[in-house]
């Protein structure tokens, strides 16, 4: 962790993530207004002392809505990624440790799925499963699964041939022991790095789904939904689009930079 903070971009990422982390934890309590409170006296206002980021078409305080929505948006990204990582890692590890036949069947399916763009894949699944934040999360997770499977498999393959794994097999260790105690602890690095970078994609995909009306539903304060709702007022009050847009961009950047730093630190070539 200390090494991440000494990494130049890692530090920027860590700072961004801690600001967003604070919003996730304290958001609803530090928000100056009730995020759902209409105020017909102050509609579509720009930034002012009373409303730091202005107000929307119903006079709701944008800063309060952003702080309130951080939780849903970020947790969506984390949840979708976590689901995708677990599913992908499980498939990838099975492919990596089983014989050639199972491996090639799994990986050809994975290759096929990888050819479908993430957004298209997500849309397909959402239309099959139905809208709403929960299903959108599952959809993003499913879209992430093939990519994670591929990374998990290659990590497992590179560890599997190492001599300490051979030594464990020669000792007569059980299959589960070899996987859980010898292979996995040494293959987990690339997975963590990839997962961190993918959180930002998940947030953006979630925002896109909400924007398209397939994710969070009004009057939720999800950032993507906020942009969707603000679209028609974009020219009368650009702050309505800019504020959640910048928030999403900063969150994505935070996770990306942090992930990049982790990748550099896990890469043995960049060490020493």
């Amino acid at each position: 962790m200390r090494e991440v903070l000494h990494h130049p971009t890692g530090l920027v990422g860590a700072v961004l993530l801690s600001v967003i982390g604070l919003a996730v934890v304290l958001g609803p309590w530090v928000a100056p207004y009730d995020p759902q409170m209409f105020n017909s006296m102050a509609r579509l206002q720009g930034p002012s002392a009373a409303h730091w980021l202005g107000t929307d078409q119903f006079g709701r305080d944008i800063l309060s809505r952003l702080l309130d929505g951080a939780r849903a948006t970020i947790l969506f990204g984390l949840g979708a990624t976590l689901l995708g990582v677990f599913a992908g890692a499980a498939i990838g590890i099975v492919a990596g440790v089983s014989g050639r036949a199972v491996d090639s069947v799994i990986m050809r399916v994975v290759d096929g799925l990888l050819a479908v763009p993430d957004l298209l894949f997500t849309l397909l699944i959402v239309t099959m499963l139905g809208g709403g934040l929960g299903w959108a999360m599952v959809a993003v997770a499913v879209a992430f699964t093939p990519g994670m499977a591929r990374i998990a498999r290659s990590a497992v393959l590179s560890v599997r041939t190492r001599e300490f794994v051979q030594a464990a097999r020669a000792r007569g260790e059980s299959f589960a022991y070899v996987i859980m105690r010898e292979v996995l602890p040494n293959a987990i690095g690339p997975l963590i790095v990839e997962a961190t970078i993918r959180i930002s994609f998940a947030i953006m995909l979630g925002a896109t789904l909400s924007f398209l009306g397939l994710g969070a539903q009004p009057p939720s304060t999800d950032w993507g939904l906020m942009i969707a709702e603000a679209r028609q007022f974009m020219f009368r009050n650009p702050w309505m689009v800019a504020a959640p847009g910048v928030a999403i961009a900063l969150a994505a950047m935070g996770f990306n930079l942090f992930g990049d730093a982790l990748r550099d630190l896990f890469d043995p070539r960049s060490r020493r």
Partner: protein
Amino acid sequence: MTARSAVAAPVAALQAARPVLEVSNYSLHYATPAGDVTALEGVSLTVAGGRTLGLVGESGSGKTSLAWAILRYLPANAREGAGRLLLSGEDLRAKSPGELLALRGRRIGMVFQDPGTSLNPTLMLGDQLTEVLVRHRGLTLKDAREKGEALLARTGISRPAEMLRRYPHEASGGEKQRVVIATAFACEPECIIFDEPTTALDVITARQIQDLFARLQEETRVAALYISHDLALVARIAHEVAVIHRGRIVEQGPAARVLAASREEYTKRLIAAVPQPRRRLVRGAPAPEALPLLAAERLTVCYGESGILDRLLGRARQQVTGAHDVDLVLRPGEILGIVGESGSGKSTIARALAGLVPFEGTVRLAERCFGSGAPFDRAYRRAVQIVFQNPDGSLNPRQRVRDILARPLILYGLARRSELDARIGALLESVLLPRDFAGRYPHQLSGGEKQRVAIARAFAAQPRVVLCDEVTSSLDVSVQAQVVRLLVDLQARTGCAVLFISHDINLVRQIAHRIAVMQGGECVDLFDVVEAHAPGRHPYTRRLLDAVTTLPAAAGEPGP
């Protein structure tokens, strides 16, 4: 004509005496986050025309740093101290990058360890050889090709014109190194630096390359700096020897003198560590009539299983035979050596016996029989332990030494939880490591220490057979000597049998009771160690024995 040669002869004699390469009082440090690391300190040496200076040292002694410094290829964090690097009296440190570019390859040649990486895989060998001639000697492409062919012919390649049109992957390691050597000699440089040029090659090929080096050096009268870790080899080909240890030259002098009567303690230790077949490390042999402990019968291993897609498309994969119909018998308490070149199948045998690759044939342990229908059970796996070549790879980097050593004890039910710490401590002491190493991670240990832990792990299972697959090949010669002594000692104490696989025939002759010779996946010869030079030996065995260099008889013998 006669007048010219009459003048030329004394000039040549003069040149021979003049130092071509002169390093005086040279120091080099590397700046690292952990502070300065001294690579070279006060190094002085000279190489005259027509002479070979052998620079001998273990890994990390600074020998390669010196080569880089002379070639002026230093990394960004290198800090040079005082001292001079002179090539025929010209200061190399004062040269501009442009001058150095013109100088490298033309006036200083270089030959590195691995011909696989020093050649560009995307260029034909001919292009890489002629490039030097076109660039440094201004030849036209056509002339350069002819000259290149002549140069290659001189290195003993039978069809040079054809070799010139090949890509590196189409040539063997020995052929590639010949091309690299031809390139180094192409511009008739004053000085050539050889950095372990035969370490990556098989014994027989290495010997051919060494002989080639000696012949070319004799012909061209080049000044050669020959860097190697192999004292026996340097003793044979070098005129003078310099021994380097932790960045300092500890001893320097004529090769014969340094080896026969070294003055420095470090040199003596180094010489003593070199494996010599005459100095046996084991006493006595097990009774030959004893019942076999472990026996392999018609052991065959094939690599390369076809994938499902290949099978669907009707593409049959080429099957590679790792071992073919090998019969081996290991007697109780015996050390059986297996020697052979890389790819001869010697490691395959160990992997098959350890249950790591599927095999055909049968394996008997005492009265029990294993084979395709009867896979190895836990009792077999406990009785037959394996130690691998690379100590960096054979210990899980995420586990402490304690966990690594505890695992076989727990797995085979050899110790109760309450006894674990005491048993691990005893195991560490049995391999001459301090008890507090139990809390360390593998990366906190040196290569030799890691290999000791790996050996302790194998002996923790109280095995009846230990398979040692090149266990000392990645270690320095002095560490190798310690590890081998330890292994022999443990073997004698526990009475287990050892299958000792190595490419180092001298080492195997030092410790094995019997030696099996592998070639192309088959066991071609099997003999008692005292009969190594007996008349009935297989021709391949004889070629192997002739190819290895041993220290001259006088060197390193304990005094009367």
